[in-house]
């Protein structure tokens, strides 16, 4: 910006090259262009100034609201504490007239002022505490993306030493750039839009003077006609864009700017939304869309592993495999839901027979219905729990004579877009259970729903089901041990991150990513339940803390959806679980305390005594890639303080910015804790365990060096680069 701004409105030569538009007359445009450029500049500056002020104001209000929040919280705590009988923080408020107190006097050279004196009040000494960089508390790992921009240049002390300088240069080379490098000359879309709008004010004033402006206005008027949807704002004078283009050459030509401006005007339009976004189903603009569209956001954002939307840990979320539904899920509605139920529409006692009926309403759209093979033999809904059979029940009427009346009703009933969408969604789950669908829709009865279904030709779309579980458990168990052993012994001591596999065409063979990375298939994989690579879980009835337990042997925590006998799936609310191999997932950590260490800096201390091998805490932090860890590690090494912890071949846990209290545990060569990387429901997590019995109030140490060697011993991680 400085350049262009510095090149003041001297000659037209400067302005001419960036102007693609051929000037109609050589003299007038250059003059007006100069004028415009001046305006652009001043307006731009004004807007920038405005922005800055606004930002400052924003910061101020944020700060104030923050102060307020703090004050509220303080008051809250104070009132709470005032109720308790507690030891208050001692204040040095001695009664005023203590003898031997020093007086502090302020004297003025000016005779008019009296000198002021007050007794000195010495504050009691407060022992210093070790240095601590701020960090955010966390109880679960948090994945962050690689930072290609260096956010700040690390502070290395007041005088930059020569080797530091070299280090910084090297550091900056590692990144794509430093944050905030190109501040000046930057013109954001927002500013651009405001700039054009501000400038168009000028054009309004000068319209009568400049004949060209009239032409532009005409053109704008034409455009206006084209865009009926748009509100009456016209496209401003071309001159404005020309001037802007000459001021900010890198933003593109006049035409491009113009187009951009038009685009920028779009969003205010409430109807216009990104293509995949469907209108709010509860809102007034709900549209009738397909099931996939309605559920698209939910399906794509939901993390099946964290049970959260847009979770903090898994960047890729698999969409559900609709066709592999648990078969027993679909229950049949055997009884009519009420007197007006569609099941009772025909002759009274015929409702049972409808289940045998196949497309009795063929005329309504039965022509396109695919024939259902199993249908005939399966639909004894009195034994509706029968598994492995088709859920298809085609509750139709036998009498086509009723059709007319139904048709009529169908025509009468109005379906809103939301209801239609909802019906499609529900039909994908409830199929022909129209009573349930109607109840869930809430605004339609089952008759109406049924009729709509008929119209929609959806009655007979029923998923295929596959057979039961093959009885081969015994065999698999034996194979399991061998497999675990194999995985442990395997020559490449590499452990890779687990990613659910999804290859619908073929079973998990050597091309399956799980097999390739030597991970077991988890419940999150899209493969068959009977997949050979699946970990079957344990059937222990004990505590799962010996190698007798296959989960323990494979350095996995018991999966609450696989290990049903050990207690990992019970007592969700209590802290006492019979299975000792599910502590990390349940967060059964010990109460830790923070205090200045006996060794160095801060230390972690334990509140209650623990037994040997008991779980103490998970080492949480940011989950970063190995590359990012290398980049960060370089800075941490310089600071001589690192919270990096190698997790597997793909990821490193960094507790520098986010973490939990265990991050303060110090290193010792003779530690009382050890670290172990455990596979917990598909995620590698770092557990800190007691190496020996630890008494209350003891400081916790683990061996930073051994944690890697140990990991090697347990799961086989090898990392040649020394991280910490």
């Amino acid at each position, binding site marked *: 910006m400085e350049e262009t701004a510095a090149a003041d409105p001297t000659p037209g030569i400067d302005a001419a090259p960036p102007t693609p538009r051929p000037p109609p007359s050589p003299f007038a445009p250059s003059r007006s262009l100069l004028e415009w450029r001046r305006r652009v500049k001043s307006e731009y500056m004004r807007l920038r100034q405005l922005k800055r002020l606004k930002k400052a104001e924003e910061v101020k209000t944020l700060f104030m609201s923050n102060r307020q929040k703090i004050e509220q919280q303080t008051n809250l705590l104070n009132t709470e504490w005032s109720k308790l009988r507690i030891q208050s923080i001692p204040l040095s408020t001695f009664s005023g007239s203590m003898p031997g107190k020093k007086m502090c006097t302020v004297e003025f050279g000016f005779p008019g002022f009296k000198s002021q004196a007050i007794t000195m009040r010495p504050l009691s000494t407060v022992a210093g505490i070790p240095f601590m960089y701020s960090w955010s508390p966390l109880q679960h790992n948090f994945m962050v993306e690689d930072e290609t921009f260096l956010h700040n240049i690390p502070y290395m002390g007041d005088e930059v030493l020569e080797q530091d300088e070299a280090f910084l240069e090297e550091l900056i080379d590692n990144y794509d750039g430093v944050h905030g490098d190109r501040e000046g000359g930057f013109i954001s879309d927002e500013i651009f839009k405001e700039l054009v709008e501000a400038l168009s004010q000028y054009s309004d004033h000068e319209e009568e003077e400049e004949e060209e402006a009239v032409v532009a206005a005409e053109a704008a008027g034409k455009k206006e006609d084209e865009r009926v949807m748009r509100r009456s704002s016209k496209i401003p004078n071309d001159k404005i864009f020309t001037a802007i283009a000459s001021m900010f050459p890198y933003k593109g030509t006049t035409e491009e700017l113009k187009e951009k401006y038009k685009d920028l005007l779009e969003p205010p339009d409430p109807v216009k939304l990104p293509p995949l976004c469907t209108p709010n189903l509860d809102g007034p603009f709900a549209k009738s869309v397909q099931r996939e569209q309605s559920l698209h956001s939910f399906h794509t954002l939901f993390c099946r592993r964290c049970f959260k939307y847009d979770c903090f840990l898994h960047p890729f979320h698999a969409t559900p495999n609709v066709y592999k539904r648990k078969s027993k899920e679909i229950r049949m509605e055997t009884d009519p839901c009420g007197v007006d139920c569609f099941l009772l529409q025909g002759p009274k006692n015929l409702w049972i027979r409808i289940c045998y009926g196949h497309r009795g309403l063929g005329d309504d759209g039965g022509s396109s219905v695919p024939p259902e093979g199993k249908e005939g033999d399966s639909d004894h809904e009195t034994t509706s729990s029968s598994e492995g059979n088709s859920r298809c029940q085609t509750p139709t009427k036998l009498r086509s004579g009723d059709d007319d009346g139904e048709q009529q009703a169908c025509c009468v009933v109005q379906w809103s877009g*939301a209801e239609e969408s909802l019906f499609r969604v529900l039909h994908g789950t409830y199929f022909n259970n129209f009573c349930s669908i109607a109840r869930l829709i809430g605004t339609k009865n089952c008759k109406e729903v049924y009729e709509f279904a008929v119209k929609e030709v959806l009655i007979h779309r029923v998923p295929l089901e596959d057979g039961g579980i093959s009885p081969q458990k015994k065999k698999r168990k034996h194979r399991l041990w061998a497999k675990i052993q194999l995985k442990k012994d395997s020559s490449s001591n590499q452990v890779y991150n687990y990613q659910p596999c999804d290859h619908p065409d073929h079973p998990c063979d050597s091309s399956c990513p799980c097999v390739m990375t030597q991970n077991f298939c988890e419940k999150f994989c899209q493969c068959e339940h009977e997949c050979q690579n699946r970990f079957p879980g344990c059937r222990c009835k004990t505590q799962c803390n010996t190698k007798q337990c296959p989960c323990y042997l494979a350095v996995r925590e018991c999966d609450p959806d696989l290990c049903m006998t050990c207690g990992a799936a019970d007592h969700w609310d209590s802290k006492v679980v019979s299975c000792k191999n599910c502590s990390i997932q349940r967060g059964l950590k010990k109460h830790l305390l923070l205090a200045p260490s006996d060794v160095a800096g801060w230390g972690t201390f334990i509140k209650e005594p623990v037994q040997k091998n008991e779980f103490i805490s998970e080492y949480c932090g940011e989950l970063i890639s190995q590359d990012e860890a290398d980049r960060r590690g370089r800075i941490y090494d310089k600071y001589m303080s690192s919270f990096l912890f190698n997790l597997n071949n793909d990821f490193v846990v960094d507790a520098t910015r986010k973490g939990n209290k265990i991050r303060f545990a110090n290193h010792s060569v003779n530690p009382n804790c050890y670290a172990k990387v455990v596979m917990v429901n598909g995620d590698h997590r770092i557990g800190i365990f007691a190496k020996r019995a630890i008494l209350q109030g003891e400081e916790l140490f683990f061996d930073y060096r051994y944690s890697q060697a140990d990991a090697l011993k347990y799961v086989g991680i090898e990392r040649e680069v020394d991280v910490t």
Partner: protein
Amino acid sequence: MAPHKQSSSGGSHPVGFGPGGKANGFYQPSSAVAAAKKPNMQLIQDDHELFLQAFEKPTQIYRFLRTRNLIAPIFLHRTLTYMCHRNSRNNTKRKTFKVDNLLFKVEKMRGEQETHSLASNLQLTFTGFFHKAGKPSQDCENEQNSVSLEVLLIKVCHKKRKDVSCPVKQVPTGKKQVPLNPDMSAGVQAKPGSFPSLLVPSSEFEPSNSHMVKSYSLLLRVLLPGCTQTQINGLTNGENHHSRDFTEEVVNRKRRSSSLREEGETTFVAQMTVFDKNRRLQLLDGEYEVSMQEMEECPISKKRATWETILDGKRLPPFESFSQGPTLQFTLRWTSDSSDRSTAPVAKPLATRNSETNQDTRPCTLRSTQTLALKESVNTDMQTRREQISAEPRQKLRILYQFQYNNNTRQQTEARDDLHCPWCTLNCRKLYSLLKHLKLSHSRFIFNYVPHPKGAKIEVSINECYDGSYAGNPQDIHSQPGFAFSRNGPVKRTAVTHVLVCRPKRTKPSLSEFLELEDGERELQRTYISGHNRLYFHSDSCLPLRPQEMEVDSEDERDPDWLKEKTVKQIEDFTDVNEGEKEIMKLWNLHAMKHGFIADNQMNEACLLFAQNHGAYIVKQNLCRNFLLHLISMHDFNLVSTLTIDQAMAQLRLIRSQATQRERDRQEDEEEEEEEDWETAVESQPELDPDPDPDPSEYKPYSEETSAGCLEKENQEESGRGAATTERMLNKQKLSGSVLN
């Protein structure tokens, strides 16, 4: 050669173990000396460098600690279990101890005092007179090597009215020839009985008829014929374990340096109180070494009785006094009969309890503590005991210290002939004690015991695991912050556990525990004391944790505020997700984060809980269909069953109808029967809107009405009735649900 020489002489060598180097230090085994030939000079020097590198620093540290422990001991070695043989008292009486005995003893003592029946004689056996000017002697028969000693009993009587000062009566008890500078260190001694001995009969301590005797004291007067005049020591006190070593060395040194001055006869005196004016016995059985003073005009000036020793105007450390001045060694015994052994002082344990501290500074030192062996000390004869003690090192139990360094690739062996610790010169007396001491007090090294035909071999290597972390009681280094008594009355403090009695299971002492052992046995060395005696801090604010905040872990929420904000923001940032979806996703995420669900089979519960907790909000914000979408999506992921969907939606419907009902209540204030009406309505058509407007296309206005901006207000107002209704309605709905299912 040179470095080796140096090392053995103990001057600058790191393992030059104390000032007693010459007498007790290592000597190089001949093999090592022989091996060191000239061409290997460089090699040896390098080797020595490595040796120094490894052992210099820890040795210096331990030497410093030794000195510190001598001057200001933190603990006494004799109190350690494995050093119990250094302790002179035993606890055998504790077994039979009864509290009544105390009273009994006190009463008895009182009676004794009244009758004053001290039926025991004071027996003094003089070992020798040590003076640097004298020459060591083997036999005291030689006139040249003995001095004449006169012992007087001084009775200070109570002042009578006419007396100006206290009447003093001197009773001579006898004169003896005492050997001058007998050679003690060599252990070559004359027969036990050959020492001059003196008996003060018990009758002397009887109250005399004319005066009431206030106190008794012994005046020892030594006449040194033709003695050399040396410096005079001041008075001294203090205990020194190694005084003899010092003495000898300093004597040897002084002989060369001190200015000698021939004179005729010199008299040295010393005075010791036997009974003080409270008639408490001050002298117990034991070995004494008394520092003597040269007699001038006034033999003993109480004014000069200080704890410091002044020599040439300079202060001397407490130990030095014994090395400097002339001292008299003797053994004191109380015998009930002149021929019989006795235990006179035992009769008055209470009276003598504080004798050491109460005593106004007498130039005497109780040496019993360090030289008396424990058990048999009282009963056995002093001389035989001495024999035993000195006999122990004379077995020539050779301890070979094998120093391993440079990653255990090199080793150097040095040997000692006694059981003194090479670093702190502590006489451990037993091999077991030595090893235990080394292991516990010098943990910068690793000691491994290897049995050896001549004695023992101890492998010494650097303990790489030593990290300097304090392994002791944390309460010793951190004092409790804050104050116990606030103005508002008693307050809670951090609970601190003080172990009063700790009797860990002790294994029987055996040398095998010092053998090199496999890993994993380190657990045994742990502190037995624990507690929270330190100030803890909040991890978020670094503010001190108050005692009442100890019990709650305040910073361990699964969903800290920032994370909640983050997830909301993250979802808000999506551009292709509509508001309804965003709203329900945010709600669900906060719900899931709060409860921390981990298993698929928790999801049914989770959804129902969600409906229960957030149902009102969902209804109010008009998100029911989005909630249904969420449930269907969960079902698509195989996480919930259709039953759950039905139940959750039924719950939502219930809440909605309640809201509507309340709305209606407000409108039709007067009507009485509405509740029943409404119930029947629900019963009859649960899936239909309770809303009077049947037109489904007008969903929006209906829901706006339902959303009931006043819901919360209403809720508060009629929470009682509302709750009751809820419960009833819940049953109703569930019932109908089950019928339907």
